[in-house]
């Protein structure tokens, strides 16, 4: 699998990260090396092996739906870069 600048640009767009031209080139090279390394897994026979996404034998964890106290709005917004009238402010989305 060749990781070139186009692949890095595409993945960076999916991840919503802006990269400089220099970063894109450097990351393409580094990621190519890392992907070649993880390609080692292609040697493992995984036929009939089920995937482990969670290490403990665990079912869905449910609880009663009981109303309780949430954080007050001022605490929720205390770290917001642009709090506005009790909301999180963002650049305008709809024209």
């Amino acid at each position, binding site marked *: 699998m060749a990781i070139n600048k186009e692949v890095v640009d595409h993945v960076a767009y999916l991840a919503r990260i802006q990269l400089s031209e220099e970063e894109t080139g450097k990351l393409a090279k580094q990621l190519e090396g890392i992907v070649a390394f993880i390609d080692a*897994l292609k040697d493992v026979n995984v036929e009939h092996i089920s995937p482990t996404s969670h290490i403990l034998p665990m079912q869905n964890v449910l609880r009663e739906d009981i109303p309780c106290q949430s954080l007050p709005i001022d605490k929720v917004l205390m770290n917001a870069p642009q709090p506005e009238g009790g909301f999180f402010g963002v650049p305008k989305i709809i024209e």
Partner: protein
Amino acid sequence: MELAKLTCHELLDLIKDRKISSEHIGDDLQKRIQQNDPKVRAYVRGAQPGGLEVSSEIDTQSILKGIPVTVKDNICTEGMNTECCSRILEGFRPPYDATVIKKLKEAGASIFPVKANMDEFAFGSSTENSRFGPTRNPWDIERVPGGSSGGAAAAVAADEAVWALGSDTGGSIRQPAAFCGVVGLKPTYGRVSRYGLIAFASSLDQIGPLTKDVQDCVLLTGIIAGYDPRDSTSVDVEVPDYTRALVKDVKGLRVGIPKEYFVEGIDPEVKSTVEAAIQKLKDLGIICKEISLPHTRYAVPVYYIIATAEASSNLARFDGVQYGYRSREGKAKNNLIEMYTKTRGEGFGQEAKRRILLGTFVLSHGYYEAYYLRALKVRTLIKRDFDDVFKDCDCVITPTSPTPAFKINERIEDPLKMYLSDLYTISANLAGIPGISIPCGFTSAGLPVGLQILAKPFGEETLFRAAYTYEQNTPWHLQKPKL
């Protein structure tokens, strides 16, 4: 008496005998930090003087009597900066305490007011990926302390902390503990609540202690462990009285030595030091046998697929909307997508970008099955290796890291070489089992070497018993770096 040099249990004994009060400990720590931290830089922002006052509210009836605990920068402490050493969380002050912090406060601990340095978002094995600059190893300040909990480990080793909390996703407690000559435990997955731990890889992360000896490790684990309804992955298994595992007896303990951990790549001095430690344990009565963990060589590639995939998803929340840094450059002011991409481009460091991109790649259309799904299947094989071994072994002993602490800048430009520092610690996270690193000697250059002990899930008591017996029969934990 230099109180900063003592363990927590020694300090508690002195308080009980009315020889000291907790205020004395805070004062002594401050002095020690002002003296050593300009060299070590274990704390974020270089621990500016004036910000080091430990809370004076002390409940004398409590277990911990106001003794301070140092906390890694990724564990939420209410009203106290928690930034994961990242620009993107600049100035973040959590509106709540992590469950481990709540439990420590209930036990009467003071939370040390400056956080311990770390690799940004715990991405690293050297604490060089911090926006506050690297922490240095107290045993040789030209070298790294390990990572990602390098600030916590260095603070404990340099007596700039009584003890500390770190987090371990692929070795981030155990490897810095080994590099700095302290004790570090990654508990069983689910043993300690992660509520309030800023997530890196949710199927691997655990919070655990870094301490000056095994007894402190036992004390701190007993306080933070337990089920938490706020963390649905925590397990409702009773927390035993771990202090009962503090026995100096390993007679008959069945120990497996995995042959895959002693092959090429291991530093010869690490190998001989660990072999001498195993011999010591044999003299004390363990029964050793060579075992095989055949999928060991796949642990690092599996880890760098699963951990980065989970990280790319967990770190999606840092988008400049709810907290932390927001770019206000150019088009970011009036276009939402530009705001996201610029905020994240400017806010994340190089290693964070590398891992988010790798994780996004292995999850992306066309590659998911070849990489991510395949890694989950190999993870099953790695877990089975341990299941098989624990059928007739009580624990497994290995080196914690293949090398002693390496030089600053030695591996930072070579991510693959850096990733291989975690070769011996990653499997425990993939298998969900507990692991402890304890000091087991020094190289000829005077660098600490760590011994790793692994046990089956919820086998912490076995680890403590083996670790305590070894420690109490050896002098390594009593050595202090010369600063």
